[in-house]
């Protein structure tokens, strides 16, 4: 209140306004603070209850009630027992080196495809959003190819690429690439035209605007795109691995099905869930790191 009284009477005093200073918390302190808040909120406990209910339902329906269509399904105790067994009945558990080989092969394929999709998709999206002319050439073709599901590319992928590895990576790359490029383009288009005008007022040349305004301005959308991209990458990877390959989690699931190793199917699926979640979280973390400004804004509760 005192501020309005003071400024209401006299001209503006710079010294008084100098007190708007705030200590800038570093990101470590911020994340500690947020973790503490999270632990105090009901959220982590509700999450545990959610997992508990899911496992309970599974356990009840398969192992206790033995519902008609669930009879063949492995129950949670059987899966956990197999998964954590030093000497698994069906040959795959956390103690078997082959298990990690499968995870490694899948992750490696994802990494290659994802990196390829990012280094091609982001620049393509940036140019699509930035240059009308470029978009007029490229976008119609892009939009026509995009709805073709990765699985429809399987025969062509096998014809086009040698071996079994490259076709799988190609299929994984495809879906990722579309998601990344499209979101990047939308990101560029979402930039407030005032920012671009402001930059040109301040004397920035076209490429300077591209570098300092367009690229950082599109980053939030780019990272949304990358999250989607890594998700659909796992999606099409598993499809690809079911078609060809000798290793990988998709291969594990498919062969376990043909060889009637049902608990191993579930192990493959759960592992996919965990690895997929970790890759997604890693991208989110990179995004938060690269967009400090946004992280800090959001931590203040502003959108």
């Amino acid at each position, binding site marked *: 209140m005192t501020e309005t009284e003071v*400024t209401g009477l006299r001209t503006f005093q*710079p010294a008084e306004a100098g007190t708007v200073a*705030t200590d*800038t918390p570093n990101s470590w302190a911020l994340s500690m603070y947020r973790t503490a808040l999270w632990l105090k909120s009901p959220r982590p406990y509700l999450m545990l209850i959610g997992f508990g209910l899911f496992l309970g339902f599974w356990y009840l329906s398969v192992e206790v009630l033995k519902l008609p269509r669930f009879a063949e399904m492995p129950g949670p105790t059987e899966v956990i027992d197999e998964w954590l067994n030093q000497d698994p009945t069906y040959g795959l558990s956390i103690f078997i080196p082959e298990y990690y080989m499968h995870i490694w092969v899948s992750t490696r394929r994802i990494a290659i495809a994802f990196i390829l999709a990012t280094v091609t998709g982001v620049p393509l999206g940036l140019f699509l959003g930035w240059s009308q002319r470029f978009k007029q050439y490229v976008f119609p073709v892009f939009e026509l190819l995009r709805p073709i599901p990765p699985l429809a590319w399987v025969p062509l992928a096998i014809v086009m690429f040698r071996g079994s590895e490259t076709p799988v990576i190609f299929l994984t790359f495809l879906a990722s690439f579309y998601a990344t490029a499209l979101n990047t383009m939308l990101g560029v288009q979402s930039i*407030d035209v005032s920012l671009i005008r402001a930059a040109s*007022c301040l004397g920035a040349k076209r490429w300077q605007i591209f570098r*300092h305004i367009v690229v950082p301005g599109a980053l939030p959308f780019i990272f949304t795109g990358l999250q989607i991209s890594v998700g659909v990458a796992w999606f099409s990877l598993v499809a690809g691995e079911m078609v060809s390959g000798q290793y990988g989690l998709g291969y594990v699931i498919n062969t376990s099905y043909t060889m009637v190793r049902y608990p191993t199917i579930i192990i493959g699926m759960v592992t996919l869930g965990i690895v997929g979640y970790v890759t997604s979280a890693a991208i989110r973390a990179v995004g938060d790191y690269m967009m400090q400004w946004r992280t*800090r*804004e959001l931590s203040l509760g502003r959108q």
Partner: protein
Amino acid sequence: MKMMAVDQGKAFPGTPRTLRRGHIRIEDAVKIYGPQNGGILAVDHCTFDVPAGEITVVVGPSGCGKTTLLNAIAGFHSLSAGAIYLDEEVLCGPGRLKAEPGPDRIVVFQNGALFPWKTNIDNVTFGPIMQGTMTPAQAYEKARHMMADAGLRGVENNYPGEISSGVRRRVEIVRALMNDPKILLLDEPYRALDSLTKSVMHEALLDIFYRTRVTVFFITHDLEEAIFLGHRVIIMTTRPCRPKKVLDIDIPHPRDYSALTTKRFRELMDETAMAVHEEAIKAFEAGEMER
């Protein structure tokens, strides 16, 4: 920076006329959106002056086309006909209907246009560094001084999203002044602020103006704001936009908020309120109020 400190002490009531710059002359400006025949006439043979070293405020109902004029001066849009001069040099005119944007005419935008991914000080140094007129070290040095002068010490390394909207507007004005512009173009910059913040911002703007004597072209729909800030107030007709009434405000500078309660201020408000109101009604009837 040193020059500014000296200015502050002795320059008022004004730097010598020869030093003043930023005189804008708009001559017979016409802007038609869409086809030349049958398009929307936004600006209709508009002619007026923005004197150097003064604050000129354009008042008109929302959507009347005043922003179109500002965009033509800034170089964001072309004119359909007519000419605009800055210190007697052609910005745009026959043969070249769109001006080039440049750091001699800097716009402060309606909703603010600080780059959210740059810290405040990186925003302020953006102009000189992009233009290559200063080394980064010089730019940061000058920026620190200017921000301190504007009461912005302590927010240099914050991001715009972390400070209040009033402080953001001040950062944006400092960012403009870093380039030593001839004229500041303000497009309803305080529209989104609450009235308390607004009153502080008005005095902050006057404070900056008295220190720098930069020419200001200010657009608003708020008559009170216009009379309080302006040396000259131009009331526009609703679309198509044309000066309806030009007022020289004889309330002495430097002004502060006590000017709002003076008799002269009330008289000027009474004299002009009707003219603005008429245009507001016309605009409303034309269904343009929602713009």
